[in-house]
């Protein structure tokens, strides 16, 4: 009896694709495509500036397109790496130092997620290629995991008219995604997300447009003055090409009536934001009693923290494959987080004092100190182990205020309001208290 002892373990394309695309949210998938453009620019730019480079995203219910002038994808990169699922272990391709895309999955994941057919065209100085994929067709052959160029390669077929750069177009957009693409609110959310994640290259000159409208970079800033200094610590680990530099800034921003949603920690890996306005335990909030860092609360809306991890080898950075979070087990992260918690505690204490001053004290020392401080870019912040804050004015015991809270029949309260022409209940309380004090003068 001949037994067939082999077990088929080849993944089915259907399964593979469905698992792949489930892994990532639509905004993040689109950001991944933009990341590839940024990495392209990193490969070809001179110096640190991104001036002159641009990414254009066009999105509507029928079509998704992202195009850039960021140097293009060399055809051998396309052949051996860009269209593979995962980077081959021995690959020594031209990945830029301090790059972003070590995982090799981003582009395919995004394209398979959005629609049923896509075209990738890319021109570099020496090569040009085109790849057209009809996903339904491609799925039909379970054993062939290759793609085909429609126009090869180096030297010949360099389309004279095309500019250097890459264009990716997706059609046959899936229904639910097309529904999202047609909503202005979705496009507004996309703009917001791209501006948030690509803040650094944008601040260095990269132009990003969504449906023709240019995105604005919002540079991180902290308040600073002679009496108010943000914390700034630097750490490093590893040697030579394996070195990782970490910079941690923490402080407060200027009061802005608009938006407490931007409070919290921002984490950058090689300049790419992976966590924005984080208010969760991941970045140290609610670190348990004794740590001095409570759960996030709107009272801390002025808090801003910025952590930068930079490494020549992106694989050493503590980010998740989806670039939407940190790898909490990474030793780099564990060390940084400890520093972050230490830096947060005095800032939380200060914000609590500020809150007390606002609500309970006639003193305005802290409020004034804040209004006199300047918002400065992080480059202007000097190293400072712990944030420094102004101290409350000494409030004499006689001037300290106590809060009285009581209830009285609404009709009576309203009557007094109208008689005395007052607007609020606290004013009624204050007036009636002062009335007694003046008449009866207890003690003084």
């Amino acid at each position, binding site marked *: 009896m001949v037994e067939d002892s082999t077990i088929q373990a080849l993944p089915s394309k259907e399964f593979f694709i469905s698992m792949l695309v489930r892994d990532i949210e639509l905004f993040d998938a689109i950001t991944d495509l933009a990341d590839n453009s940024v990495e392209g620019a990193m490969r070809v730019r001179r110096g640190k500036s991104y001036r002159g480079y641009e990414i254009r995203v066009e999105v509507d219910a029928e079509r998704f397109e992202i195009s850039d002038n960021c140097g293009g994808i060399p055809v051998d990169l396309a052949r051996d790496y860009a269209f593979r699922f995962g980077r081959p272990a021995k690959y020594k391709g031209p990945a830029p130092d301090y790059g972003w895309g070590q995982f090799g999955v981003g582009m395919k994941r995004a394209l398979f997620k959005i629609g049923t057919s896509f075209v990738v065209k890319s021109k570099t100085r020496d090569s040009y290629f085109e790849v057209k994929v009809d996903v339904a067709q491609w799925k039909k052959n379970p054993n062939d995991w290759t793609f085909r160029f429609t126009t090869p390669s180096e030297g010949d077929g360099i389309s004279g008219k095309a500019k250097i750069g890459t264009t990716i177009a997706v059609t046959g957009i899936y229904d639910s995604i097309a529904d*999202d693409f047609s*909503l*202005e*609110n979705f496009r*507004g959310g996309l*703009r*917001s997300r791209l501006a948030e994640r690509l803040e650094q290259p944008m601040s260095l000159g990269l132009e990003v447009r969504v449906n023709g409208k240019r995105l604005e970079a919002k540079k991180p800033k902290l308040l600073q003055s002679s009496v108010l200094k943000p914390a700034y610590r630097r750490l490093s680990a590893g040697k030579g090409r394996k070195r990782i530099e970490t910079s941690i800034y923490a402080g407060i921003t200027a009061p802005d009536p*608009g*938006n407490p949603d931007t409070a919290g920690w921002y984490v950058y890996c090689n300049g790419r934001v992976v966590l924005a306005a984080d208010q969760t335990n991941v970045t140290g909030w609610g670190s348990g009693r004794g740590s001095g860092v409570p759960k996030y609360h709107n009272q801390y809306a002025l808090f801003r923290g910025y952590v930068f991890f930079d490494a020549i080898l992106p694989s050493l950075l503590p980010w998740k494959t989806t670039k939407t979070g940190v790898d909490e087990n990474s030793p780099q992260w564990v060390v940084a987080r400890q520093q972050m918690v230490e830096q947060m505690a005095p800032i939380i204490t200060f914000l609590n004092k500020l809150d007390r001053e606002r609500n309970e004290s006639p003193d305005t020392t802290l409020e004034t100190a804040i209004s006199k401080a300047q918002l400065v870019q992080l480059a202007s912040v000097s190293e400072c182990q712990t944030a420094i804050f102004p101290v409350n004015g000494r409030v004499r015991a006689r001037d300290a205020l106590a809060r009285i809270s009581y209830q009285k029949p*609404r009709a009576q309260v309203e009557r007094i309001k109208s008689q005395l022409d007052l607007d609020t209940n606290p004013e009624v309380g204050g007036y009636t208290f002062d009335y007694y004090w003046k008449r009866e003068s207890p003690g003084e």
Partner: protein
Amino acid sequence: MSSHKQINFSIRPAKSIQRKMLCEAFTRLAPFARVSSYSYIGFGGYFFSDFSLVHRTLDIRRMTSIEQETGDIERFEYNRPYKCITVEPGPSGDVLPTLSWRNKAIVWLDYDKRLCDEFLADIRHVCSNAAPGTILVVTVDADSKKLEQPRDALSKIDPKKIPADVKDSDLSGWGLANIYWHIIRNEIHEQASIRGRTLSPSKKLKYRQLFNFHYSDGTKMLTTGGLLHRNSQSDKVDQCDFEELTFVKTDSDAFLIDVPNLTLKEARSLQSQLPRTAKQRLTTPIPHDDVRRFSEVYRYFPTFVEAEI
């Protein structure tokens, strides 16, 4: 001779005209269902003017007034003009989720404040739950004059929902109303889209805008709204023939309710020469522009009565 005095704007003629126009539009809902079977939900306040008009012209008997001044509910109930009105105390955000949405409704959220995230949440709630055939109308204060900074008009709205590239100069005049219109429309579209995600194409919800009013009785206001219906009901919407009404606006173009400053005598005299054909010249010393403005709204002009006291 009081008929020579100009119309008193403190009685808000523009708002009154708008109310009548809205009611006239509501009468066209017949292809969807008997209009009297609709519910009406609004903010009646002390005077319940919209409730009165809706009940009298449409015979709607399920009426709910949401009242945020919860301290004095008895007084509001006392002032109800008809028995079929229920007063529900509390802010709209609290009350709307407690209402039953099974029945088609006419919902008029007549806020007297600037647009904010809380109002957008109310809009979302109605769009998520309303029975197809429901009309949603929203009124907000769109006047940027009294603010310290024109930008303050947008400060209570999630920045992601504000159209890109809005400059301060876009907020003057009726510009703010246009921006609010845009934001409200995007919110309705988004919610209708979300609601339909798991439904078949014929059941998906669509929004047919009917109203985009700019009016002012001293403060610039925006009223916008329309009909929420299933895709498969599009022909019923066409049968309603809303577009026949001149004040119905289905896009960014607004209908400006511009009440001319006329005396009662002038109003009556003009009225007797209306409707006119295009070529007809009216005999009147009144400026041509006022004549034009009057002829656009004359059918809805408040009827004033002189009284001897």
